[in-house]
Structures are given as structure tokens and as C-alpha cells.
């Protein structure tokens, strides 16, 4: 069998299949209940894939988003649990690859980090900081809408990428790119106004 299996189905599975079918028709209550019900299952699959406990919530968020974006691909004649398990396993593997790539590039060296004084640390900067915040607001207002939206969601409202992706209706990749561009542009603008 190449895609998600249809058998065996438990009572849980049958309930989730019905909830997902209702969600496809736009039933919000059934959908939210289904997603809440899926969280422990996704965390369990992530654990079995070797995802450390502190990163399992990342997998859960990714899988919830994937369910949302892929809900039109689910066939209610097939087992929901089998469909969800495959998606959760793939998302867990994606995350593990990302963690390994990240780990290969960075070194955890707290002692080396603490041995260097922060050259920018200065108690008197507080006053400058307050004055500077006006400049930041002005610079922020001059950004294109998509970039401003990314800064507002990810920095000012401190939303996670997953939450910001939903509220702004943009992909996580697009948000990251917009945030990166916005920060670069803000840095340039603030440097110019700081010199001027």
C-alpha cells in the first residue's frame, strides 16, 4: 500500500475521520476539537522518532499547520490516524534534520561567551533608547506593508512563526524573508538617522 491505510480503524479513528470530514465542510467546533485531540498523538509520534521533549511542541505546531493546509487532500474513506501518523513522522524527521544542521554549524560555549564584556553595555544608553524609539516607529512606518506586518507579528506581538503565519496568512518562509529584509532596512535607516 502506498498511501495511508484504510484499516484497522479504532473508535478513536472513526471519530476523528468524522470530525475531519466535518472540518472539510467548515465545521469549526469539530475542527478545533479534532486538533486538540491530535496534540498528544502527534507528540507521541514525535517522541518515537527521537525528537527531544523540548522540541516536540515545534513538531506539534508544524503538524497542526500542515493538517490545516493539507485538509483538502484528506480522503474521509481512509484512516485519519494513518494519515496523521505519516505527516507527523515526516514533520518530525524534517525537524530532526534541521536540529542536526543547526548543531553542526554552531558550538555551545557559554564560558567563552561570558568571558567577553559587552562593549555596547552602557547604563546611560537608557535615555538615548527612549529617544531612539521614536525614530524606530518612524522607520517602521516607512517599511512596505508585508515587512511591517512581519515585524509587528514576530517582534512586537512576539507571536511564534506558526501563529504569525495564520494571522497574516503568509507562509513561515515568507515571514522569515520579510522579517530579515525589514530588519536590514531598519538597520540602514536607523544608522542614517543616527549619523544625521
Amino acid at each position, binding site marked *: 500500500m502506498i498511501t495511508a491505510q484504510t484499516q484497522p480503524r479504532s473508535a478513536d479513528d472513526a471519530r476523528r475521520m468524522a470530525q475531519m470530514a466535518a472540518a472539510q465542510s467548515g465545521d469549526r467546533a469539530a475542527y478545533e476539537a479534532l486538533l486538540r485531540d491530535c*496534540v498528544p498523538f502527534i507528540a507521541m509520534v514525535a517522541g518515537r522518532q527521537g525528537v527531544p521533549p523540548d522540541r516536540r511542541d515545534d513538531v506539534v505546531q508544524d503538524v497542526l499547520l500542515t493538517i490545516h493546509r493539507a485538509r483538502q487532500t484528506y480522503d474521509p474513506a481512509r484512516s485519519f490516524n494513518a494519515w496523521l501518523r505519516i505527516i507527523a513522522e515526516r514533520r518530525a524527521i524534517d525537524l530532526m534534520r*534541521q536540529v542536526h544542521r543547526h548543531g553542526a554549524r554552531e558550538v555551545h560555549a557559554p564560558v567563552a561567551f561570558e568571558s567577553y564584556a559587552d562593549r555596547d553595555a552602557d547604563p546611560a544608553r537608557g535615555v538615548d533608547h527612549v529617544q531612539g524609539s521614536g525614530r524606530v516607529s518612524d522607520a517602521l512606518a516607512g517599511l512596505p506593508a508585508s515587512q511591517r506586518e512581519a515585524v509587528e507579528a514576530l517582534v512586537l506581538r512576539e507571536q511564534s512563526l506558526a501563529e504569525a503565519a495564520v494571522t497574516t496568512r503568509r507562509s513561515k*518562509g515568507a515571514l522569515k524573508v520579510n522579517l530579515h529584509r525589514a530588519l536590514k532596512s531598519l538597520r540602514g535607516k536607523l544608522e542614517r538617522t543616527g549619523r544625521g
Partner: protein
Amino acid sequence: MTTSPHDSLIRSLGSDLKPVQRLRAPALRALGWLAVVAALGVALATFADTHAMLERITDAPDMWLAVIGSTATAILAGIAAFELSLPDASRDWAWLPLPGALLWIGASGFGCLRVWVVPATHVAELGEARDCLLFIVALSVPLSALLLLMLRRACPLNPGLTAAIGGLAVAAAAATLLNFFHPYDAAATDLTVHAVAVALVVGANRALGGRIFSVAGVTAGRVPPN
């Protein structure tokens, strides 16, 4: 009742919920794309000398076997791409176009070993072979755009592989349609140019498709911790 740390995300997703139309079976969706390719073939046939083409490709077994091979590759790779675009699809679908591709490559390769030249054809010169490359690449642009848009409606969790197999379907379809305007016998230069064109199309689809599917928000990613 305890609150899950994911509650705000779940509520956001709930508020974003709209009724969706279930996607049809991947084979049916592939058939839709192949129907567009077939319609394009019919349109191109009106400008081509189909009699001469049929004579050309039936004169030597390697010629018609290569056409069957490229057609089979387009069909099988098209089906495989639509299957791979489903989030729960097995990567094994990527092997589906292999028989067609082997027949296509094998027959084209054997054609180069043939010592006689098929009547009403000649061995393509470098300039003519370059036209083949331009034809395959130019025809691949609209076919790729349509295929990537159709694939994007699903949610491929293997975006690179899905787009690459889609690119193979597009390149094979374009190479098949090239036969309408290809009065050349099989030759190493021509075969190499075709291989380069196919590689270009597959590579461009893989690169572009990966980005398009990523914009659709299907690839994993988060801001690294500070």
C-alpha cells in the same frame, strides 16, 4: 479544563477554517494535465507535416520506441508527481516513470549505434540541435507553470522530489511534441542536446518548484533561537 500551549494556534486555525473541496484522485488530476498536453499536441499537429513525421518514426524501431518511451515517461511521471504531491504519499512513487525513461533512453541510445540513416532525415547540425533545445525549453515553460500550480493545490512534504518528477513529466512531454518538427535522425549530438534540455527543465522545476511549494507554506522552518 487545562489549557494547551497550542490553544491559541488551534483557535487561529479554527477562525481561518473555510469549507474546502476535496481534491480528486491524483491519477484523475494527472489526466487533466495530460489532456492539456494532448490538446497542445493537436494544435501543433496542424502546423506540422504529420505524414512525414509518421514515415520518419516508423522507418526504424528505435525511432518509434523512443517516442513510446518519452510518451510513457510523460504519463508515468505526471501521475507520480500528482501522487507525490499528497502529504502522506510514499517516496516510492518517484520510481514509477523508470520503465518509460529506460525505454526512452535505451531506444535513443540504440539509434545512435544504427549505421544507416532513416530516409527523409539527416543528422542534425549543431545549430539545428540548438533549435531542439530551445523548443523543449520554451514549451516546458507553460507546461511547468500549469503543472506546478496544479501540484501546489495539494501539500507536498517532499517539495524538491515532487517538483523534479513534475519536471521530468514536462520535459518528456515537450520532447514527445518535438517529434512533429524533428526531421533528424538519431545521433550522439542530438541525443546530448536533448539530455541537456531535459536536465535543464528538471533542474529548473526542482529549484523553482521547491520555492513555490515553500511559499505555499509546506516546508518546515522556524526562526532559529537567539
